[in-house]
């Protein structure tokens, strides 16, 4: 974890309301593991003091990039950031996704621009599998070509049917999952490993399936954060223990949790 004054080297529209912000961050970039995030101090957001957490889309020796949607108070101010400007970040933060199990078929599941948070994982994973991306409409399905270029088979779903299967991401995932019988060797449903990022109802839906069908699902949880480093205890969720539950911090103990560890609150 570093605190770094970075310089904006790229900031542009990517698709629809989605934008990419690329920062020169040589102290932070090399440390990034898949599924980690950073806390960014948004310039000219003077009336709101806290940093904003962003998933890391890309990272290398020279820096990091985030892909975000310009909605909400914080991200509107984000959109005004200029190339050449200084941006203060703390990162990389959080536990990140674990090493994939090489004996299993990796499956990525994302809602909206959640797949940006899966890009580094998809890039670094030796074994490529299948990716289910869900969104409202065609314009909300991002990075299909980028994931295909990495060797992933992408199956999009849209709420309005403008791209891929019509419906939620489960509309494409469930038939695929059901096709693979239990106990059919490597193809068996118990031999898939899910890496999921998206809105909480989608995470829960995937987690429920993982528990029911006996596969592993790593879920990236999104909960309002303040400090990002584990000090303030704002972003806690209930994690199951032998005797009940305990609070776990999304920012430090997460944001990645296995489906069986989460006690969902209604």
């Amino acid at each position, binding site marked *: *974890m*570093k*605190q770094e004054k970075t310089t904006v080297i790229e900031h542009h529209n990517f698709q629809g309301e989605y934008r990419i912000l690329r920062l020169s961050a040589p102290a932070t970039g090399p440390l990034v593991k898949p599924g980690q995030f950073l806390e960014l*101090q948004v310039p000219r957001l003077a*009336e*709101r*003091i*806290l*940093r904003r957490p962003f998933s890391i889309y890309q990272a290398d020796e020279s820096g990091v990039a985030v892909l975000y949607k310009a909605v909400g108070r914080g991200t509107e101010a984000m959109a005004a950031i200029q190339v050449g400007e200084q941006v*203060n970040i*703390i990162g990389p933060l959080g536990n990140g996704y674990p090493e994939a199990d090489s004996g299993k078929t990796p499956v990525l599941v994302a809602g909206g621009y959640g797949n940006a948070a899966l890009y580094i994982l998809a890039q670094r994973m030796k074994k490529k599998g299948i990716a289910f991306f869900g969104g409202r409409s065609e314009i909300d399905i991002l990075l299909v070509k980028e994931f295909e270029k990495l060797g992933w088979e992408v199956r999009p779903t849209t709420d309005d049917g403008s791209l891929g299967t019509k419906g939620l991401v489960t509309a494409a995932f469930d038939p695929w999952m059901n096709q693979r019988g239990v106990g059919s060797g490597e193809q068996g449903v118990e031999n898939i490993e899910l890496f999921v990022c998206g809105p909480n109802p989608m995470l829960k839906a995937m987690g429920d399936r993982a528990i029911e069908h006996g596969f592993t699902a790593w879920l990236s949880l999104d*909960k*309002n954060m*303040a*400090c*990002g*480093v*584990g*000090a*303030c*205890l*704002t*972003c*806690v*969720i209930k994690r199951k223990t032998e005797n009940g539950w305990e*609070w776990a911090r999304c920012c*430090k103990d997460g944001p990645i949790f296995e489906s069986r560890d989460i006690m969902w609150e209604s």
Partner: protein
Amino acid sequence: MSVDLKIKIGSMVMKNPVTVASGTFGYGPEYAELVDLNRLGAITVKGICPEEHVGNPTPRTFETRGGMLNAIGLPGPGAKGFIKKYVPFLKQYDTPVIVNIWGKGMDDYGTVVEMLDGEDTVSAYEINLSCPNVKEGGAAFGTEVDSFSKVVELVRGKTQKPIIPKLAPNVPNIAAFAKAAENCGADAVSIMNTMPAMAINIDTLKPELANKFGGLSGPPIKPIAIKLVFDAARAISIPIIGMGGIFEPEDAVEFMIAGATSVAVGTANFVDPGTIVRVIDGIERYLIEKGHNSVADIVGTVKI
């Protein structure tokens, strides 16, 4: 040219007057990768009561214009858990540790000190008598002088280490509490805890915090804290640790001029973990620029 930044709170020597506000810095390890803990005058850890405590449901914080509300509810590992989990870590540093203590009832304040007092790493106790976010203790003790005094006396009877009651801002006469603390043998007082506050969501018609109410912190409360420090400083001769919205060195210097010997950086840690070191360096710079030799030269120098 150099100045002496050292200060004393009872028998505790701080190499500079800057600590952190309890609850904004965890127990130390959380910020150790970002802040050199040896630079701090003291580390004030999150509130500890005798037993493990679970704290409040979420949402626990809510950002407001220029500040934030919190109702974390003092979750923590309890005295034993603190000793096991954090004392070995804190021991590595050449920085005194102030343990913030709280209780669900009066007896807890004595019990937690008994449990912690054998640890050399524990340098002093800050007595939380004013947390707005726990039903049991906290605020109830902090807003009546009689019960406030009883807790301070109880803790005084249990330890030779410095004790520092933390005062609530929502009292009609802060000087009465500061004076009571001094009379009961306190070595210093912390001023102030967060301000009881509330925010309501206009769509759901529900409070933004699960606990309904919380404590306001950050720059919006600084002028309130300055006034409280000013009022208390005229009533007592023990040191004051001033806190409330310190984001820049100038804020810390203002607290000192109002009457604080020491200051604590709180919410600013979340915004910029570099604030503490910046404040320490900025205080030193100010003293040099103004031709002073020590912190004491500016404490309480407000002209009225």
